[in-house]
Every structure is written in structure tokens, then in C-alpha cells.
């Protein structure tokens, strides 16, 4: 079962990564980032189970807490974007380049 669990978490991670790479809506990218982080965190729980070692679960708490605070800042940035340009499409924010 270890392999299956790993595959699920990797799938979650990869789908999240694809979401970040292809979506243009900032909020959806933010959600995709949550998926990635959740997928990566899930590895900790899976390993914790199969190793019979509880520290993985503790580590997941940290990951979750960090994810929450990251989201808070991300949403603040989304609001800034919305206030500046009335849009949260990242393609409207591509002045800085080259």
C-alpha cells in the first residue's frame, strides 16, 4: 500500500504544480499551491504510518500552520492586486521583465 499512498500524494502534488503553471487566475493558483503543499505534507503522514513514528504527524502540523499563514498573505496580495487593477489575472501583472 505504501506505493499507492505515495502515488496519491505525488499526484496531488503534480496536479497542484500543473495548476500553478497553467492557470491565470491568482486565486486558483493559490489553491493549486495549497494542493501542492497538501500533497507534499501527505508524504509525511504516509511515512509516519509506515515507519511507525509519530514525528511525521507533528511535522505535518507545522506544514499546515505555515500553509495557513501563507494563504493569509497570499489573499492579502490578491486584494492588493484587485485594488490596483480590478483584476487578479496574473497576465495583467507582467510589467517587470527582461
Amino acid at each position, binding site marked *: 500500500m505504501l506505493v499507492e499512498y505515495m502515488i496519491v500524494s505525488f499526484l496531488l502534488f503534480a496536479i497542484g*504544480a500543473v495548476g*500553478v*503553471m*497553467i*492557470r*491565470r487566475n491568482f486565486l486558483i*493558483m493559490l489553491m493549486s499551491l495549497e494542493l501542492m503543499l497538501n500533497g507534499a505534507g501527505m508524504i509525511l503522514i504516509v511515512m509516519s504510518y509506515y515507519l511507525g513514528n509519530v514525528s511525521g504527524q507533528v511535522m505535518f502540523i507545522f506544514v499546515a500552520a505555515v500553509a495557513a499563514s501563507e494563504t493569509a498573505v497570499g489573499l492579502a496580495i490578491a486584494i492588493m492586486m484587485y485594488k490596483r487593477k480590478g483584476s487578479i489575472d*496574473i*497576465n495583467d*501583472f*507582467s*510589467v*517587470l*521583465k*527582461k
Partner: protein
Amino acid sequence: MSGILLFIVLAPLIGFVINGVFGKWTKPYAGIIASLALATSFILGLFPIMSVLNGNIVEHIYYTWLPFKEVAVPMGLRVDALSAVMLFVVTFVSTMIHIYSIGYMHGDPGYSRFFAYLNLFVTAMLILILGNSYVLMFVGWEGVGLASYLLIGFWYEKDTASDAGEKAFVVNRIGDAGFLIGVMFIIYYFGSATYADVFPRAEEVLSPAVATIIGLALFLGAMGKSAQFPLYIWLTDAMEGPTPVSSLIHAATMVTAGVYMVARSNAIFSLAPIAQEVVASVGAFTAFYAATMALTHKDIKRILAYSTLSQLGYMFIGVGIGAYWTGIFHLMTHAFFKGLLFLGAGAVMHSMRGLLSIDLMGGLKKHMPQTAILMVIASLAISGIPPFAGFFSKDAILAHALEFGHPIIWVVGEITAFMTAFYMFRFVFTVFYGEEKVPNLYHELHTHEAPSVMTLPMWALGILSIVGGFVGLHYGGSIPFEHLVTQIAPNTEIPNEAHYSEALLIGVSVTMGLLGILTAWLIYIKKILTAEGVARTFRPVYTLLANTYYVDEFVACCIVKPFWWVSRNLLWKIVDVEIIDKGGVDGAGWLASRIGFLLRYVQTGFVNHYAYWVSLGAIVLSGWYIVKII
């Protein structure tokens, strides 16, 4: 002595600080302050030089830089026979040129800035020649580069000037990278970069292959700084700077740093015959190539610039064949007469209000008699006519080339000697002799002799251009200069040295020089004498003259013109401008811009694309190992 040695370097630095920081207030006296600083250096420099002449080596270590485990760099100053010669040349010529600049730069808005830069340059140059290790040499090496670059771009209002400055720096950086690699190798193999540690152990530590690599890397540095083919392109553009700068930096001192460095590294080069061969060949080729360039140009400073390249080529022949003292000897005499030539050109420009084309000049002798005489002296010296200084050094190089088994280089050298004499006297004859080419030009420009603050330093250099070569004469079976320099830079031992009659060699050299002068005379002076009236009156003589004229024509049509054409169209326009200038410099720029353009696709401004790169990095790096395991 340690204080004196330190103060030799510090004096110009103090001058730099005074003129650089308090330039606003010291402006009227900037030139005097700078010259005094240099004169102090020169006089103080005589003490260690005397000590060296008595057979000592003066070395003092002031503090130790980077003392870490096996690599410690004691920072000190060292005067031995090699650096003593350089010390004398640099401080003397610099002092003269500083004094000259007081007159030349008079009234320039950047008067104090100019002298501050000049002093900065001399400080760096003194660090370069007096440093006791490669690291210190590199410090000076970069320092002279910086100062030279600031001085080339001195009149930064001119676009050409700032572009030229930039070009000089970039081309030099190519060479510097080579130098740095060489130094890193030296440190790697010897655990030190100090001369006293490196050279005595060179033979036991370095295998020929390693010595060759180090030698070639160092020579790349020398090529950049001493403007050897193909890294010479910056030097001719560097003529955008004020003329005293051209004289000091781009003729007399800085450009010879490469020669000095190769001579300094003689212990390494002597172990690497291939590297030596490369040095000598590049030198010979540059000597020849640059001389052909000089034949065609009409801008007086460019003629002299190409001539400098050519003479540097001679010096590299000297150090490349393993007769290091001849290269250093020519370096010294060249500093005198080329410094003088540039100062003379500066005096002409000064009185011609900056005009540079020889087409506009002629008969200047009447207006500037002292300059004319000095220029003739310098031209005789560079042409290798005895007893002027250039004769001894050039002859020493060419004689050693033949003796050490490089007949081709000798032939090239002799042909170049002919061309040298020709283009120098073409310059002298068209500028100072003959008739005024543009009526009333001199009158309008108020052409007059330069003030004595300019002519006196020129005379000082002129006298040395005459007598400076006498140290290369035989005195009781040995040549004093050779005896001095070979203590530090012994000749590379050559099995089965060939022996040639010295008189014959001297004869060939002198003949080449005289032939060149004669040709120039025939073309540029004689042409005027073929007035038709003379021809009609003296019919029998006419035939002779006519025949002579045929010779002229022959020379002009069959030798000079094709040569002219080849050198102008083929060498200058195609090789110099198209291939090296456009192909090399612009090409590198073009390539870099293409790469940069492609790379800028990375930075599109869309955050999605940035994420592509992050994941691509992860995929490629992990894929590398995934593929390995599957």
C-alpha cells in the same frame, strides 16, 4: 632603504590624492605638484638603482597579505636589475612628460583631473614593476589599465573617446583573464606567487607541459597589455586621449608591461620552448604587420601608434628568442625615442590647433626648428642608424635572433627595419620639409614653436635618444647592459649557437635603415626636384634623372603602390577593420547579444513561465538520476 623604496611608490600617490581631492583649489599648480611628486620618485629611485648597479638586490616586505595556510603573499617591493631598468625608464620618462604636460594641457578645464590621473597611472605602474610577487604585479596591472582607461576617455564629451576607453578596457580584460589563469597555476604549483619563491624552484617544479601552459596564459596577458596581434585593436583607438597620455602610456611605459612581465617570468619561459616560439612569432608578425599599417596612414598619431605596435613586436622577438636583455634594452631605448616622437607630434598638434593629417603639413621646419631637429633625431633612432639609441637595441635583437637560430624572424625583422625607416622619414619629410601644402594655413593658425616648458623635456629625451644606446657597446669584452640584466634574466641556453660576423650583421641593419630613408627621400623630396626646367637645361643629366625617376616610378608603381594597396585594402580594411574590429569585437558583442536575447526569454514577466523554469530545473536534475537508476 625600505622607507625610500616605499616612498618611491607613495610620492605619486600623494600627488594623486592632492590633485584628485583638492583639485578645485590646486588647479593652477596641479601640474607643478604632479611633476614634483614624480621628480621625487625619480630622485629617490636613483638610490636603489645605485645599489643594484653595485650588484645587490633591494627587497623589503611591508606586510603579508592573505596569510592562509600554504598560500601567503608577502607584499613587498623589490628592485633588481630588471626592475631597476624599468624604474629608471618609468620615473624619468614620466617626469619629462609631466613637465611637458604643464604646457600642453594648459587651459584645459580638466587640468587638475588630468594630472591626478597621470599620477595614479604612475603609482600603478610603479607597483607593477616594483612588486615582489605576481599578485602585486596584477594589482599594478589592473591599476594601469584603469588609469589608462580613464585617460583615454579623458575628453569624455567626445563619443569616440569614451568608446575607445571602453574598448581598451574590454580587450585588456581578455588578456587579464589569461594572466590571472597563469598566476593561479603558479600559485597552485608553487604555493606562492613571490618571485623569490617561484623562480629558483621553477626547474624542479614545472614539467615542460605545465610551463608551456603557464607561459601561454601569461603571454595572453602580455598580448592584451602590450597590444600584440590580434589584441592590438585598442591601442590605435587609444590615441583619442591627450597626446602626452599617448606618449607616456601607449608608447613609453604601460604597453611595455607585457614585455617586462615575460622577461620577469624568464625562468618559466625558458622551460617552455613552445611558448617562447609563440612569443617570438607573434612578436615578429606584429612587428611586420603593424609596420605595413604605418605605411599608409595619414594621421600622425596613428602612424606613431602603429609604429609603437611594430616596435613592441621587436621587443617580443627579443624576449621570445630567449635573449631577454635585448628586449629590455629595446624597451628602454624605445621609451626614449618613442616618447620623444609623440611629444613632437603633440607639439605639432599644439601649434596646428589639433590638426592631424600629414596632407595639411609641410615645411614646418621653418616654424618649429627645435621640434624638427628633435623629430629627426628620434626618427634616426627608431630607424636604427648608428650612433643613435635604437640602432644598438634593434641590432642586438636581430643579431640574437640569428644567433639563436631564428633566421626567418631575422629576415622579417630586417624588412620591417626598412619599412620603419621609410615610414618614419615619410612622416618627417612631409611634415617638416618641402613646401607648405595649404597656403596661409600656418599664418592663420599662428603656428609657432612650442613653449620651452614643452621643448626642454623633449630635449632631455632627445639627448637620451642619442646616447641611451651606448650602454649596449662593448666595454672590455662584455656589454654592460647585458651583464646587468642577465643577472636576473639569463639568456635561454641554446645548443650550437650559430656565429655570424658582427660587422656583417650591423652592415645589413644599417643598410636597411639607410635604404628606407633613401627611398622616402627619393619619393617625398626628390619628386619636387624633378622640375621640367632642370631637365631641359641639363640634357645628359636629365637621362640620369629620368632614370632615377624611373626608379622612383618603378618603386612607386611596382613596389610601393601594390604594397600600399595590399596593406591598405587587404590588411587594414579587411583584416584590421573587418575581421578583427568588426568580426572580433563586434562579433563577440553580436554573439553575446544573441545569447542574451535568447536568455531573456526566460524572463517573460509571466509568473507561470517562471514556474516552468523551477519545475524544469527539478525535472532535469532529478531526471538525470532517474534515468541512471532505471
